[in-house]
């Protein structure tokens, strides 16, 4: 049985070609143009809300964007190509639900607690997901419609989602909302690598940075608990 599993390569799990994947990006771009401009503008507004610690507004708007991408990309054209897409789409919808829930009921941990490294990394990831990601396709020579855009394509949305999550939440809530975008970035990076697509390292690097932010958030949380304990004595 172990021999069976070692006989698999990552490419054995990717049921489409690079040509088809790039066309998928292009088709989604063509279908929703000129929504790109509005979705990036909305993303920047969410980022501003997160930066100014307006958790409720940022979380709810992000939840809507994530649910939209689950429908128009992951459960839609992506799931046509990959039978696992319907389950991934469901996972995205669950994450959208969690984002909405945590925004509506902020809980006991104030957003002001998020600081230093997680906040810096989160801001960087969110800015890159919204403004940097569309440039990748253009730089490697694909058409403008194949440019991956926050709010329409999954990869930049997942990267920005990780960033906003790092800016807004701590503890268990942060891990719960970060889990699916983190796994998506890993899955996407490995998929692009198997397809020999040039920018495969981008989602992998985003996942690695987000992981650093998540660990930093845990450390910050421990420090907070310790400092509260010592001040209480």
């Amino acid at each position: 049985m172990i021999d069976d599993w070692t006989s698999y390569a990552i490419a054995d799990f990717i049921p489409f070609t690079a040509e088809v994947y790039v066309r998928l990006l292009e088709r989604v771009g063509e279908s929703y143009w000129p929504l790109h401009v509005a979705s990036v503008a909305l993303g920047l507004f969410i980022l501003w809300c997160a930066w100014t610690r307006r958790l409720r507004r940022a979380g709810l708007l992000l939840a809507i964007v994530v649910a939209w991408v689950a429908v128009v990309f992951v459960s839609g054209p992506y799931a046509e190509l990959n039978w696992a897409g319907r389950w991934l789409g469901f996972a995205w919808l669950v994450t959208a639900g969690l984002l909405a829930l945590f925004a509506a009921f902020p809980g006991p941990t104030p957003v002001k607690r998020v600081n230093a490294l997680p906040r810096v990394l989160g801001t960087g990831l969110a800015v890159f997901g919204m403004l940097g990601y569309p440039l990748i396709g253009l730089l490697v020579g694909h058409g403008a419609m194949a440019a991956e855009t926050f709010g329409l394509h999954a990869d930049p949305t997942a990267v920005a989602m990780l960033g906003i999550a790092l800016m807004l939440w701590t503890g268990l809530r942060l891990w719960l909302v970060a889990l699916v975008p983190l796994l998506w970035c890993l899955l996407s990076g490995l998929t692009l690598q198997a397809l020999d697509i040039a920018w495969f390292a981008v989602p992998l690097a985003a996942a690695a940075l987000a992981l650093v932010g998540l660990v930093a958030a845990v450390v910050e949380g421990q420090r907070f608990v310790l400092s509260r304990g010592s001040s209480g004595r």
Partner: protein
Amino acid sequence: MNQLDRRQLLKLIAAGAAVSALPCAGLFAAPDGILKKPIPSSGEPIPVIGMGTWKSFNVGSDRQLRLARTEVLREFFRLGGGLVDCSPMYGSSGEVLGFALEQLGQPDSLFAAEKVWTEDGAATRSAVAELESTWGIAPFDLMQIHNLVAWQEHLETLEQMKAEGAVRYIGITTSHGRRHDAFERVMANEAIDFVQLTYSITSRDVENRLLPLAAERGIAVIANMPYDRGPLIKGLKARAQVPDWAVQEFDCKGWADFLLKFVVSHPAMTCAIPSTSQVAHMTENMRAGTGPMPDAELRQRMVRHIESL
């Protein structure tokens, strides 16, 4: 009793003609030049080069790419192709085949092969019905159990369906050398018409036990991954020309010829199913089913040559 349509009638006539010729050689030349081998359980001849659809036909609802794949399939049939293989695991490939066959009008030579791929052993009939709807075709010529998933339950139902005429042949599949022990047990103990397994000049494990068993049990063999996942032929094309002796001995015109002729010239092999998304590559693939084939001695020389590169 099901009424025979034109496609089935032509196949029956072909099978009858083939059975009458069985005492002769196992290789038949069709008028258009593509070589055919008989399915041992019936004698019906099928072209030695078929078509796989893993990755290549999974293009979703993209009309531009669907039309491009239709042209690949058109070329396949124009050059005498028959067996087209698919699986529910291949994403939208079945739907794309359905689209392409609708454009082409279901050629008479089509030998439609699909797979049941569900853990639910009670869902065989509904799975087959769904595939028929997806392709726009019924009955399938060959229904296989994908990777031996829930094989006992599916096989029992498929045997009933074969007896009812709801499928013409039944079989099992594996790939990349997985579960060969279980595969061998099914081959030895069950009444199946086809097996599908991985065989290429660089993946020859099946020569030891499975191919001799198939010959002994009268089971047709389909070779998937004859290019060993693709990089094999890409690497060869990039760094070397086919050897002169291959050109002289069996009119080898390129690496597709070299690799596919190696696969289909094995005495136990019935058909290879390379997969491609390009018309030019389909033309290359189909050319490998024509002309002289390497004999046992040449096959050894081919292996040594590839190993030396």
